[in-house]
């Protein structure tokens, strides 16, 4: 496999393409659910889930989980939950915003901005689940470490590292106010 960050860059560009195909007014609906997913995972999942999982396991099997096993469960579990929410935001009758989107160059720019934002949030969050739990995926030889210098630099700016968890809730609030305005 190539450098670790290439996979995440592909996801990032993929979301830009999706934004151009669907239009940014629909993508903003997906953005709302991405914010919800980020809030749930960073506010509740990351700080509280390890203790709950460990407690449940200890009470069931009377032994504690090793640190690395917890890291595997957390990284995979949070990624699955996150991907499930993102999938739900795109499947079936989707959540989108009222109104006509801008056209021409302005519309192009907004599609690009929203696509880049969604790409950064999704690719960044999935990368964060790996980075925070010391890259469990590398134990399966799926991807290689160490990160390149660029990769290490990008990893400092993954969404949950630079945005406080409560800020995701603020953004969800803002989105909902715009969604329900008359």
């Amino acid at each position, binding site marked *: 496999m190539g450098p670790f960050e290439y996979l995440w860059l592909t996801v990032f560009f993929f979301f830009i393409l999706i934004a151009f195909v669907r239009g940014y007014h629909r993508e903003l609906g997906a953005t709302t659910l991405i914010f919800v997913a980020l809030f749930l995972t960073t506010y509740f999942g990351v700080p509280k889930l390890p203790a709950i999982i460990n407690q449940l396991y200890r009470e069931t099997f009377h032994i504690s989980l090793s640190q690395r096993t917890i890291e595997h469960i957390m990284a995979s579990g949070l990624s699955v939950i996150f991907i499930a929410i993102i999938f739900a935001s795109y499947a079936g*009758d989707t959540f989108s*915003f009222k*109104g*006509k989107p801008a056209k021409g160059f302005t519309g192009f720019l907004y599609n690009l*901005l*929203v696509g880049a934002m969604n790409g950064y949030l999704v690719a960044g969050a999935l990368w964060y689940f790996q980075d925070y739990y010391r890259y469990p995926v590398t134990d399966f030889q799926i991807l290689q470490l160490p990160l390149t210098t660029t990769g290490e630099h990008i990893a400092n700016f993954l969404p949950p590292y*630079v*945005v406080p968890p409560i800020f995701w809730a603020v953004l969800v609030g803002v989105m909902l106010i*715009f969604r329900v305005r008359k």
Partner: protein
Amino acid sequence: MSGNTADLQANILFWIIIALFAWQGYQRGLWAELVKFGFIITGYLSGTPEYLGKTLVKLVNNITFAIQFLIHGGAAAIITGNFNATTLNKIFTEIKRLPPPIPKENAEMAMFLAMIFLIIIGYLVSTLLKKDKMPGMGLVVGALNGYILSVIFLPLLPDKPPFTFEDLSFEGIIKQLGELFGYLIARLIDALAALFNFMFDTFGAWAIPILLFAIVIITLASLTRGKKKGGSQSSSGGGS
């Protein structure tokens, strides 16, 4: 030789910009172009240190200083009436340690960004205005806008032409087009990197939350509401 080519390219670009803006002015009409003109002039004044630039930077720094004063105990001192020399001295000692949001080394970049920001806002506001019945006057003011923008931005171009087509064979043109595309992408990345560096210098860890918030607000606000038909609002909901 390359200097002459650069001059020629700059001259061609100068007339292309004027023609484009004149055409846009003809389509949009007088009022939209006048609004754009106002924003361009304000942007130019804000981006020039001798006119409004330095004042703008001072204003931002002083407003931040005032906010920091209130946050670091000033507001509490005013409310409680505990407004004595010791309290003030303590507050000022504390906030003097904080760096200004726009330090001297970033002042020029901040002025330039303020100018770009105002020009973009002018363009966006002008698109909201309805087309009027004075296309001729719109053409004139549009050309004037193009002229001012050329005067502002063309001197920023490099003295040497950054790229020339030398091999005019089919393969050569394809190869050089690829190189030109790579060159433009590299310059775009440089410009974005400079912008992000400026943002991180100014806002620190809050740069990304502020950026996300700005994108969300700008794009949501851009969704114009459709005309009501029989009491129901037009909605684009559903379907991926």
